[in-house]
């Protein structure tokens, strides 16, 4: 099940402009438009990725707090 807390609304051009400004980017209209499909593709993928994670009891959202970035390495080294 997708995480109900995850963002399900696609990003808008305004979202792109606002974050761009906050990060100091000077986006042209063309650049902002070019970003939008990829931003929304990533957000859809992020939602889909959560379907791999069972809900953590009591928190109402998928678990994820015990992740280490090198989990794959630890498993392979066993």
């Amino acid at each position, binding site marked *: 099940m997708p995480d109900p807390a*995850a963002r399900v609304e696609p990003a808008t051009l305004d979202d792109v402009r606002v974050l761009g400004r906050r990060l100091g980017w000077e986006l042209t209209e063309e650049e902002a438009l070019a*970003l939008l499909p990829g931003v929304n593709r990533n957000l859809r993928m992020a939602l889909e990725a*959560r379907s791999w994670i069972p809900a953590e009891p009591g928190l109402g959202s998928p678990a994820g707090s015990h992740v280490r970035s090198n989990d794959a390495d630890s498993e392979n080294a066993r």
Partner: protein
Amino acid sequence: VIELDPTLLTIREVGDDLRSGRYTCTDLTAAVLERIDRIDPELNSYVTVTRVEALRQAAEATAELASGTDRGPLHGIPVAVKDIFSIRGVPTTAGSALLAGWQAADDAAAIQRLRTAGAVIVGTHTLHEFAYGPASTERSAFPPARNPWVRGHVPGGSSSGSAAAVASGLCFAALGSDTGGSVRKPAALCGVVGLKPTRGRISRAGMIPLSHTLDHVGILARTVEDCALVLGAVAGHDPGDEASVHAPVPDYRVSLRDGVEGLRLGVSPGWLDDQEGTHPEVVAACQAAVDCLVGCGARVVEIDHQALVAARDVNTLIVAAEAYALHEEPISSRPEAYGSTVRSRLREGAFLSAADYIKAQEARRRISNVVRAHLEDVDVIVSPTSPFPAEAFADVDWRSRYRSPSFTNAFNLSGLPALSVPCGFSSGGLPIGLQIAGRAFDEPTVLRVALTYEQQTSWHTRHPGFVV
């Protein structure tokens, strides 16, 4: 310069010739440099050719062999590396104007190992910008490498020049980087062998990163045995890479010819099905390769491909977040130094939240566990490497990769070893690759299956027409 066509020789064959005195390391290096001069203007596979230093190294290797010092299988062998590895005194560009004029003070760890093994480094190879750019012709600071089989087609990437150069006899082997398939896919599209070993097997120290938790160093060579020889030279623990693992490095030659009798091949019917978006000629070639291995004594065990399919999106998310974090400062202060597509892809990563990233890593852990569980029931997992043969430059739409299956990503997420071996050609004369993936640090079994298949076929003996 000797009369020699390196495209027809393997590292082992050349090694025999060097030791018998048929020609010297200097002769061999000069012959490769001459081929680069003659052929590479059509391919753009090299960014920098280190001619003077290569000839100096070759002279040293010649003198050592003459005096009885033999550093092993790579002694005097001309090799090159993707232009993402630091080489002392040589510019490293990562294919981007951002790094113009930059030179590393020291060799990358893998370069040091190549030198210790006596290899002669003849230059650096073209790549997609920061290993993240598109294959298109006009958006990078450097011209793209071309596929030597059909030069109007892409060689695959991001280790594009490495695959094109190895296929064309412009070096005997190359080191590349593989974050989602960047060694295996160009190897498949150019008709050479590409190995991404287990994460931690080869040090990444001194390699410009794209994604700290997914990057691997990989090897491209013309045969499986050559790949094994290079792996033996560059594998091993290095404290300079936090992912590097203390694990013994076996002699990868020992079990290469043990055959596949009784081995279990994990095959997903869904992965050998053109309804899933894979080109029918790729499906047919890979199915024939599986049949060939079965004919050699292996047996097929069907596996579910749900986790393998899901790997593509999770790999994409993790790379997006980690690549943005790496480039956060320059993408803001010097955006014009990036090609437009890479600039866009890097910026996209800024829109992922910390929770998105952490949960993608958790999904990665779970997907990796499923893949490892498959490998408790089978010895290797077999699939196509790329869903289609090389596209024409004019047809490239880099966003379309998100609509196609990816067979390579699961093995970056899990860090498990995976290799691409040539398994046929399309009707358009473009190579097709078969991917063989195995358990952690079980490169010997992966190489053994690949060599068994290779010995049953002649794909690896074919060379692009215009370079022969």
